[in-house]
């Protein structure tokens, strides 16, 4: 399927408009859920870390460092992408599956249009463009959420929190998070598109494709997470 995306392509202007539309559907429409999830995850991480750091020998700013590291390394890329696998993945699979069973894809093929390229390539490109942006946004909100939770529960002062998120900061972790985001974006969009595009049957099968897309995307994200951590951090 991947090779078929690149042959018999349409005009660049067609893909430009389609990709922009998909960027809005995938990116803009996911901002709210990503913001909610990442803020609360950051807040919970701060509270739970503080609850477990009971030793007086450990300075309190370590809570902020932990929130930063967890947000950048794992919560923002992986957790966000698992959430997006559900939202974006099911949407892509459902849309393409419905198009398949209503013969809209056949209509494209009869017209001589490469349906796989026309329908799937913009989705993959839009995912690769917007999901890393969402992951970056999630990382920032997660750290902010931790700060708000820490201040509201009086666990950590503002100065300690700011000091903590700056201390021993490893810039490579940001690159690592973005690499994960790109890989996860490709996996989510391509797996979901495959499931939807090759749906056979009726409405029941569209639902099954959607569910399978989400499950397979989540598993792929988690496996890729492990492999990337092993390859890039060790």
């Amino acid at each position: 399927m991947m090779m078929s995306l690149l042959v018999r392509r349409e005009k660049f202007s067609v893909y430009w408009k389609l990709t922009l539309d998909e960027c809005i559907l995938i990116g803009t429409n996911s901002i709210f859920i990503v913001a909610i999830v990442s803020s609360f995850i950051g807040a919970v991480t701060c509270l739970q870390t503080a609850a477990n750091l009971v030793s007086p020998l450990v300075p309190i700013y370590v809570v902020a460092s932990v929130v930063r590291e967890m947000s950048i390394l794992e919560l923002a890329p992986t957790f966000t992408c698992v959430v997006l696998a559900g939202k974006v993945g099911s949407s892509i699979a459902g849309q393409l599956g419905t198009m398949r069973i209503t013969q809209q894809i056949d209509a494209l093929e009869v017209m001589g249009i490469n349906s796989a390229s026309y329908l799937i390539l913009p989705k993959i490109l839009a995912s690769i463009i917007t999901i890393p942006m969402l992951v970056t946004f999630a990382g920032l909100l997660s750290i902010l959420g931790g700060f708000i939770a820490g201040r509201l529960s009086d666990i950590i002062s503002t100065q300690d929190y700011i000091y903590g998120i700056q201390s021993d900061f490893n810039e490579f972790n940001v690159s690592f998070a973005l690499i994960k985001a790109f890989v996860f974006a490709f996996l989510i969009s391509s797996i979901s598109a495959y499931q939807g595009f090759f749906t056979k049957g009726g409405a029941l099968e569209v639902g099954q494709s959607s569910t399978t897309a989400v499950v397979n995307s989540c598993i792929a994200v988690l496996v890729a997470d492990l492999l990337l951590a092993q390859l890039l951090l060790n």
Partner: protein
Amino acid sequence: MIECKNINKSFNNKHILKDVSATFEQGKTNLIIGASGTGKSVLLNILVGLIHPDSGSVLYDDRDFTQANKEEEQEIRREIGMLFQGGALFDSKTVEENVMFPLDMLSGMSKSEKTDRVNFCLQRVGLDHAAKLKPSEISGGMAKRVGIARAIVMNSKYLYCDEPNSGLDPQTSIRIDNLIQEITHEYNITTVVVTHDMNSMLEIGENIIFMFQGEKIWEGTKDNILGTTVPELQNFIFASKLIRDMKK
């Protein structure tokens, strides 16, 4: 003119089409009729290239479609228009955008030329007032007419209709049949209609082939179909008491 020669197709060791040969004439409404499960839709999908036959060939005015390279296939595809059973309109686009879609993707026409052409096609099918509606906002009969407009917008030489009357009331069915026949004669195109609707057969069947268990076993016109002596075709046509009474 469209020809299919010795078409064979099997799925999962089940022989669906057995050595089917037929000629579909230009300027006529050619019907493929038969009971459900006789291979009509499989034959149609082979003719339009959605399925590849196990053996045999499909010729468009002596151009071999089954053996064509990508460029030749694209050239033939631009001359094909198809009305799918459910309309197959793109949900996210309006009626106007659906009809304009082939022009946007395949023609080099200017925006005004495309608009004029789309308006002409929508007027031809009587839906110029519905241009801004979405497919979910129009009836089944209207969706079929939009499908016809989209099929002819590129000045197609070949028009395929897959059960165009399914799900429609008798009055709308007749309207769709008449529209298909008018367009066929007006533009002198080769039209192939897959149907098991008796009314369509008797109204617009200028060239009819009857499929039974994957084989073509009769060919004729609406004028001689009622007098057929082929038992399988007799069972098909006279299954309805109304038709039997008509014959009497």
